[in-house]
């Protein structure tokens, strides 16, 4: 029983982690809580659905298509709504701008797709394997594999490539990176593109896993993923992964052993407790204040 719950939690948590990565990367570079990120995830789920229904694409094509679409969308959002604000306004104005984008995107999707919940048609035939006491569906395996692949890929990109090095430089000091000849605007665009693509992948997989896609799915998922990013220590990429998985597992365990009607409260309650004990999050660095 407990192993089954852990597996379900891991599956849910890995999708939280995919969304949380976008929050944490953007935050790491420009200290913006990108509230439109949950909506990007929602748009990703819809694009995947559209591809599957209209073109009969398989899960791989739907996933890649949604990721490509959201890459462009994420970059557009950054150029239109955040770039004009950068450098000349408080961080709060940028947050309000992000909220504006979030309201805009979810309303746009309501106008396009109506408020009712859509279902994914059967994209893969689900086979359930029994491994010891645990039932693993082929869908769960796919989700875990894709999530792991994306996260390892991201980690390699950030740590080993030139762009990744530029991203790390920007997250340490934007102004100094600019002086060193890094095209800061391009790096920020790139960060938004990568984060949005990961969120889109999360959206498609959650859509298939829970068999439900609706225009307001981004709000709660966005909040939970932000909670995961903060739990892991915002700005830290491994932190977002660990935070996402921890939150997913704790949430599933909470539902299984405590109460399902308090599902959303459990995630946030744990978060508050962790932050009170460890204000910088699980993997966040303790920042000493400079005077």
């Amino acid at each position, binding site marked *: 029983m407990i192993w089954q719950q852990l597996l379900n939690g891991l599956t849910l948590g890995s999708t939280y982690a995919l969304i949380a990565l976008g929050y944490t990367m953007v*935050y790491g570079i420009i200290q913006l*809580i990108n509230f439109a990120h949950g909506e990007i995830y929602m748009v990703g789920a819809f694009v995947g659905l559209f591809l599957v229904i209209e073109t009969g694409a398989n899960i791989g094509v739907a996933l890649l298509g949604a990721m490509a679409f959201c890459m462009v969308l994420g970059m557009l959002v950054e150029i*239109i*709504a955040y770039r*004009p*604000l950068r450098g*000349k*306004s*408080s961080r*709060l*104005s*940028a*947050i*309000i*701008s992000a*909220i*504006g*984008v*979030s*309201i*805009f*995107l*979810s*309303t*746009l999707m309501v*106008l396009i797709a109506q408020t009712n919940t859509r279902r994914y048609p059967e994209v893969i035939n689900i086979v359930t394997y029994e491994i010891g006491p645990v039932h693993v569906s082929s869908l769960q395996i796919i989700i875990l594999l894709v999530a792991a692949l994306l996260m390892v890929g991201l980690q390699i990109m950030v740590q080993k490539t030139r762009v990744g090095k530029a991203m790390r430089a920007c997250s340490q000091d934007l102004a100094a990176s600019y002086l060193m000849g890094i095209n800061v605007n391009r790096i920020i665009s790139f960060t938004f593109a990568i984060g949005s693509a990961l969120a889109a992948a999360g959206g498609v997989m959650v859509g298939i896993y829970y068999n439900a896609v609706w225009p307001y799915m981004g*709000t709660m998922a966005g*909040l939970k993923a*932000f*909670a995961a990013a*903060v739990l892991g220590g*915002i700005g830290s990429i491994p932190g977002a992964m660990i935070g996402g998985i921890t939150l997913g597992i704790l949430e599933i365990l909470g539902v299984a052993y405590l109460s399902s*009607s*308090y*599902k*959303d*409260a459990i995630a*946030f*309650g744990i*978060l*508050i407790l962790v*932050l*009170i004990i460890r*204000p*910088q*999050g699980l993997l966040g660095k303790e920042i000493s*204040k400079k*005077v």
Partner: protein
Amino acid sequence: MDALLMQYFDPYYLRILMLIGINVILALGLNLITGVTGQLSMGHAGFMSLGAYTSAILSMQVGCPFYLSLLAGALVAGLFGFIIGIPTLRLEGDYLAMVTIGFAEIIRVFFLNFEPGGKAVGLSGIPQNTSFVLVWGIVIIILILNTKLLKSRTGRALYAIRENEIAAESSGINTTLLKVFAFTAGSFLAGLGGGLYAHYMYFIRPQDFGFMKSIELLNMVVLGGMGSIPGTFIGAVILTLLPEMLRVVAEYRLLFYGALLVILMIFRPNGLLGDVRVYDIKRKLQRKKVGAWPSSSN
């Protein structure tokens, strides 16, 4: 008095004016926390729902007189603000934002499962005791008290915390005490606004006080101009009127609302009246007079 007003004014306009008044009270509370003291709170609607539910339950099920239940609602919200204010001593910026979001969500889920509060269906049949005069009377009192507070030594200490906490602390300001004070006072006002809202709307549900409501209130503070009382007032007026005016575009309403938020932030990044304080305007006017004097004497 309200009956008299009803004779001369369209009830629709009166209703909007009432909602503007209630939103001004709520936004002024948040302004104290986020605008003035600089502690980003994204869960103001949670405190509002505490006030709304407490006062509604007291006046419906316990039979308390209206003013007493209103006060009790505000006090409960204030008490929770005090309790939440304590972790803010340790948390900063966006971690604090997350805690306030989380707290508001926990309250919402609590009321979704709270038997006396009618669970997800909500409470209906709350006596409609909130009157136009009461709301605007409270608005005026709060405006006066708020202006007085922000002009005082304490008010300037609060601004100092926002501008630079370390500098404020080294100037001998008890930042911990003042941050908790700002949180408590802001939540008290949220509870008061919530109580008035419940006794005006007749009917409350947990989803009325969700994340979007908190965001709406935050928008009022930021749009008007952080820390500015006239700014917050104007922000509350505009953002209450805007959805009503956008009714023309029917289902595209929220689309325009979202786009307008982005556009406003691009063109007025520090809010419409960013940091305009009443006494700054006064001083500016006085300065002009002084500047004009030598030329007139020549």
